[in-house]
């Protein structure tokens, strides 16, 4: 498959993130802004998959980063910083979902994403992209979270288990069923050579 230009910027190293967190512990607001800008797109996407309401994404994302700001000294480095932050976001999202239990149809996800593909690639990707979004909508919130944490956020299954506070086998099972569902839905949209 022809690769499409990535719209996200290169992710900083774990070391750079830890250096930022050290400065955040010292109440360095500039360092916290840098950390925020690193995690904001990743958290926005993760949270949208969980709560599916732009207003709630904004609220939960802010709450998550406030916890990071207020409790940075509690991060002991026993896990990756990303795992710690996503775990906070996941817990915040669960609480938000209790308050707003019934999802409502929302504008399609792709209206909120950057769109700068080359014109010669749009048709091929558009179809697959739309099929993927439709397929994701049919998954439960927890299945969507596992898919996003795996494919987009690049977390391992043990890290995902830590984020979601569940056994690793649960993560594997959720991913297995989610993949099966995704493949069913997008099977007609895949390039012929697959």
């Amino acid at each position, binding site marked *: 498959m022809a690769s499409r230009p*990535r719209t996200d910027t290169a992710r900083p190293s774990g070391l750079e993130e830890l250096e930022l967190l050290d400065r955040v512990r010292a109440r360095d607001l500039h360092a916290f802004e840098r950390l925020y800008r690193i995690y904001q797109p990743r958290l926005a996407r993760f949270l949208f998959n969980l709560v599916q309401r732009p207003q709630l994404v904004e609220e939960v994302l802010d709450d998550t980063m406030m916890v990071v700001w207020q409790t940075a000294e509690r991060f002991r480095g026993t896990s990756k910083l990303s795992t710690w932050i996503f775990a906070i976001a996941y817990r915040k999202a669960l609480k938000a979902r209790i308050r707003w239990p019934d999802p409502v149809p929302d504008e399609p996800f792709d209206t909120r994403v950057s769109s700068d593909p080359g014109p010669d690639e749009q048709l091929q990707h558009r179809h697959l992209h739309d099929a993927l979004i439709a397929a994701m909508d049919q998954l439960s919130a927890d299945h969507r979270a596992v898919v996003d944490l795996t*494919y987009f956020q690049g977390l391992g*299954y043990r890290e995902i288990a830590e984020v979601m506070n569940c056994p690793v086998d649960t993560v594997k099972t959720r991913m297995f069923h989610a993949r099966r569902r995704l493949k069913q839905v997008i099977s007609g949209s895949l390039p012929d050579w697959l």
Partner: protein
Amino acid sequence: MPNPVRPEDAHDEAEELLPWYATGQLDPTDQALVEHHLSTCARCQRQLGLERVLVEEFRSFTPEVDTGWTRLRDRIESPARTRSSVAGIATQIWQALNRPAVATLAIAQLAFVIVSGSILLSLSRPAYQALGTSEAPPAANVLVIFRPDATEADIRGALRGSGASLVGGPTAANAYLLHVPADRRRAALASLRSTGDVQMAEPIDGAGG
């Protein structure tokens, strides 16, 4: 002698791990397991191709970064100022009350305020109760957010169509508080959600909707 791993078990185990193999997130043991199986399983080789498509597609778009930083920075800076000033006042009051003479005076003043307030209240209360006056406004039981491009006429039409009346708003998040009769709320919510002008409509008092 340990039981040999059945081929179907090895296949299932490797297949489960393929997403993390595709994203490079397996530890060496898992990676070796998957690679060993991939060398002999055409089905998993095809699955791996699909996994790589999914990874590429999922990573090819990201939400746009909005101006959330300004909002969060304000939240960090403002409450700190508010909390410190409130805390300072509270501390001063507490310290003053801890002085015996001040405490005695404060208790006497508080007693005076309570007694005199009760007398004034009883004198000002009318001896009759009017009928049909001072009815409490209806409580909001629906929260709605209209789409940014909804016009005033659109909003009016949505409210009329649902039988809802406006109780309050817009809030800081541009939400409106509505009241609908309890027995018609489900229908009202459905009506609001069916219009293209409503971004969100939810019950807000804990009851179903």
